C-alpha cells in the first residue's frame, strides 16, 4: 500500500512547513493542544460553529486531501474516543438537568463515527466507510482495514485513511485518575528523559490518501503488526518473525521511530527493542513533539513520510539522522499492553 499524500494537524505547526524546517514548539504544560489552520475557507461558518474539536480537526486535515484527490473510494478512520468533549458535555447535561429536555447536537457530534459520516456527507462519498475505535490500536486497525480493501483493487482505487483524537478536560481527568499523566509540569523537549511516572497529553489529526499506485507516492507502507499482552521475553521473537515475514532483517532497517513517552514505568520496552538492533542504529522520538494520545502513531507515520523524503533533518534528543533513511520501523506501545510495528519504505 502506498501513501500518496498526507496532512497533519498537531501541537506542532505541521499544516505548514514550520515543523519540517525545524521550528519546534516548546510547551511548559502537560496538555499539548493542536495548532489549527484557518478553517474558514473550507468549512461554512454555520457548520463550523456546531462542530466539536475532533470533527473539526479531522475535517480540517481531510478536506485539503479530498480536494487534491478526486473520486476516493472510501473513508477509513481510527479514533479511540472520537468527540469526547461533546460526549461529556451531553453527559453533564443529562446529570445537571436531571434527564430533562436536551438538544441533540452534542449527542450526534459525540459518536466516534461522526467524523467519517460528516466527511462522506461533505464530499458526497457513498463509498466504503468504517470507523475503528480500538483504543491504542485504533489507527493500526484502520491501516489494516485499508490494506485489506486495496488488496486485489485496481491502481485507481484510493481511500482516505486517517486518525483523530482530541483532548478535553474530561478525558484528561479520566486518564489522570487512571495514573497516565505526570503530576509535575515538564517541558515537552524534556519528556523523554523525565524519569517520572506518566506522560503528557497530546491530540491531533493526521490524514493520508492511500492506494496501490506507486506513482508520485510519498512512501510505501510495507506492513504492520499488532501485539497484545506480550511477555518481555517474546518481543525479540515477535520482531524477528515480523521482519522475516516481510523479507527483512534488523540490519535492513535504517531508522527506528520510537514511541517513548517519558513514562518511567513503560519506556523500558523501547530500550528492549533497541537492544535487538546494532548499537549504532539510528532512532528518533516523536511524542516529545505531540504528547501521548491513543492514535499518535498516525503522527509517527506522517513523521516517517517526511524523513523518507529527506524533508526533515531531525535533531532528536539523543541522535541525529545522518542520511536519508530508506526503511523505517515505527514501534509504539501503550502501557506495555498494546504494541505495534509499522514498516515504511521510501519510493524511488
Amino acid at each position, binding site marked *: 500500500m502506498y501513501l500518496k499524500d498526507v496532512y497533519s494537524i498537531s501541537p506542532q505547526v505541521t499544516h505548514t512547513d514550520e515543523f519540517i524546517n525545524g521550528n519546534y514548539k516548546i510547551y511548559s504544560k502537560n496538555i499539548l493542544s493542536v495548532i489549527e489552520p484557518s478553517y474558514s475557507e473550507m468549512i461554512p461558518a454555520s457548520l463550523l460553529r456546531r462542530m466539536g474539536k475532533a470533527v473539526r480537526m479531522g475535517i480540517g486535515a481531510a478536506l485539503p486531501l479530498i480536494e487534491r484527490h478526486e473520486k476516493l473510494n472510501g*473513508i477509513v478512520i481510527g479514533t*479511540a*474516543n*472520537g468527540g469526547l468533549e461533546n*460526549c*461529556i458535555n*451531553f*453527559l*453533564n447535561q*443529562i*446529570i445537571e438537568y*436531571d*434527564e430533562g*429536555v*436536551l*438538544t*441533540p447536537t452534542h*449527542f*450526534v*457530534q459525540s*459518536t*466516534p*463515527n*461522526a467524523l*467519517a*459520516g*460528516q466527511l*462522506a*456527507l461533505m*464530499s*458526497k*462519498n*457513498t*463509498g*466504503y*466507510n*468504517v*470507523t*475503528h*475505535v*480500538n*483504543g491504542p*490500536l*485504533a489507527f493500526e*486497525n484502520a491501516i*489494516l*482495514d485499508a490494506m*485489506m*480493501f486495496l*488488496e486485489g483493487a485496481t491502481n485507481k482505487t484510493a481511500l482516505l485513511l486517517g486518525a483523530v483524537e482530541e483532548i478535553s478536560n*474530561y*478525558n484528561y*481527568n*479520566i486518564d489522570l*485518575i*487512571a495514573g497516565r499523566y505526570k503530576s509535575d509540569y515538564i517541558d515537552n523537549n524534556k519528556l523523554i528523559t523525565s524519569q517520572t511516572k506518566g506522560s503528557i497529553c497530546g491530540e491531533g489529526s493526521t490524514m493520508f490518501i492511500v492506494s496501490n499506485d506507486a506513482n508520485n507516492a510519498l512512501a510505501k507502507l510495507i506492513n504492520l503488526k*499488532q501485539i*497484545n*499482552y506480550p511477555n518481555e521475553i517474546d518481543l525479540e521473537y515477535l520482531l524477528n518473525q515480523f521482519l522475516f515475514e516481510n523479507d527483512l532483517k534488523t540490519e535492513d532497517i535504517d531508522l527506528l521511530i520510537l514511541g517513548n513517552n517519558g513514562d518511567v514505568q513503560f519506556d523500558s520496552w523501547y530500550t528492549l527493542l533497541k537492544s535487538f538492533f546494532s548499537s549504532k542504529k539510528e532512532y528518533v522520538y516523536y511524542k516529545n513533539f505531540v504528547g501521548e494520545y491513543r492514535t499518535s502513531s498516525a503522527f509517527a507515520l506522517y513523521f516517517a513520510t517526511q524523513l523518507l523524503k529527506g524533508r526533515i533533518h531531525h535533531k532528536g534528543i539523543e541522535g541525529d539522522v545522518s542520511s536519508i533513511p530508506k526503511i523505517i520501523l515505527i514501534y509504539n506501545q501503550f502501557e506495555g*499492553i498494546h504494541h505495534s510495528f509499522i514498516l515504511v519504505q521510501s519510493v524511488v
Partner: protein
Amino acid sequence: MQKVFITGMGAISSIGSTVDEHLNSLRSGKCGIQTAKYFQSKYAQNLVFGEVPFSDEQLRQRNNVASKKDFTRTTVLALNAFNEAIIQAGISLEVLKSDKTAFISSSTVGGMCYTDELYSDANLKDIPSNYARSYEGSDHTWRITEMFEIGGIVDTINTACSSSANAIYLGARLIQTGRADRVVVGGADSIAKYTVNGFNSLMILSDQACRPFDENRNGLSLGEGAAYLVLESEDAARNKFKIAELNGFGNSNDAFHPSTISENAIGPILSMELALQMTGITPDLIDYINAHGTGTLNNDLTETLALNTVFENVPPYNSTKSYTGHTLAAAGSLESILAILSLNNDELYQSLRCESPINTHQSRPIFEFVKKNLNYVMSNSFGFGGNCTSLIFSKCI
C-alpha cells in the same frame, strides 16, 4: 479466496440468554420490550425497553466474574454471548491463543453505560469509581482479549447501529486475505442514560413497544444485548458442523445527514446491491430479509423504498427489533443470528405490531409464522453517520 463459514453463535438480549431461547421466543412471538426492572433513569417508568432480565451482579455471577468489579454491563453481556459462541464452535482455550485466531467486536456506548460514575470521574467530583479505566468503547474487547489470551488480530468497530455488521464484514476479510483462520465477530451494548437521553433528544423513542413498518409507528424502542458469531475458513471448518456460509457483504455511506437516511435511500440501496454483487446472485434468489426496521418514521419509509428499488418482488421481510428492541452495536450480529435461525429452520417469523403497514408500496412485512424453504437470507443494518451494511448468508445443510 477462502470461503467463510459460521461454526458458532452466541446471543443474549431481552428475549433470551442463549441462541435456543431466542429461537423459542421468535416461534412463540414473545416480545422482550417492557418496563425496565434494572435500568435506573427518569425514563425507566414512562418508556419501555428491551432489557436483559438480569442485574449486573447476576450477569457477573452467571459468567463467573463476580470478583471483577471493573467489568461493565457491556462487558459481561459480551462475555455471555462470546462464551456460548466459542463453545458451540468447539474453539478450545489453546486455539484462542493462536495468532491465527482474531476477535472483532463493536460497541457504541461501550464502557459509558455507567453515566453517573463517568460524570463523577470526568469532572473529578469524588474518589475514582471502579470504572475509571473502563470507559472506552474498546474496553469490553480488551477485557475479553485478556481473559482468553486471544493471540491474533483484535479490533473494535463503531459505525453506530451498523457496528457489528461491519465487525462480521471485517472478520470475513481477515479470513479471505489469509490473516486469520477463525474470527469471533459481533458486538455488545447495554441500555444507558447516555443513549436513552440521546435518542430522546432526537425525539425518536417510542413511548410504547416499537411498531416497525406500521403506518402509525412513532419511534424506536431501545434494547440491549450482545451477539457473537465464530467465522472460520473452509480449511479450519473442515471437520466441523457448518451452521451457514457468509456469502457476501456490502458497505456504503448514505452521505446525506448525520442522523437520518436520505429519502431516496442511496446508502441502503447501494449496500444491498454490493452484497448481491459479491454473492454473485440475482435479487430474486434472496428468500428472506431481516430488515433494519427501527420503527422510526424515517428509517422504515426509506428502507421500504430501498427494498422495492432493489427487489422487483420484495422477499418476505420482518424487523426482529419488534422482539428485542434496538440493540445498537449488537443489532447487526444479533439480527444475523436471528436471520440464520430462520434460514436453518425454514421458518419466517411475524414482524410484531405491524397492524396497518406502510402503504407507499405493495410490499408488506411477514404477518404470521410460516414454514418456507429458505436458501439465501439478507440482514440489513443502517446507522447514524450514514453507515449502511448488508450481509448475505446461505444454508450449509
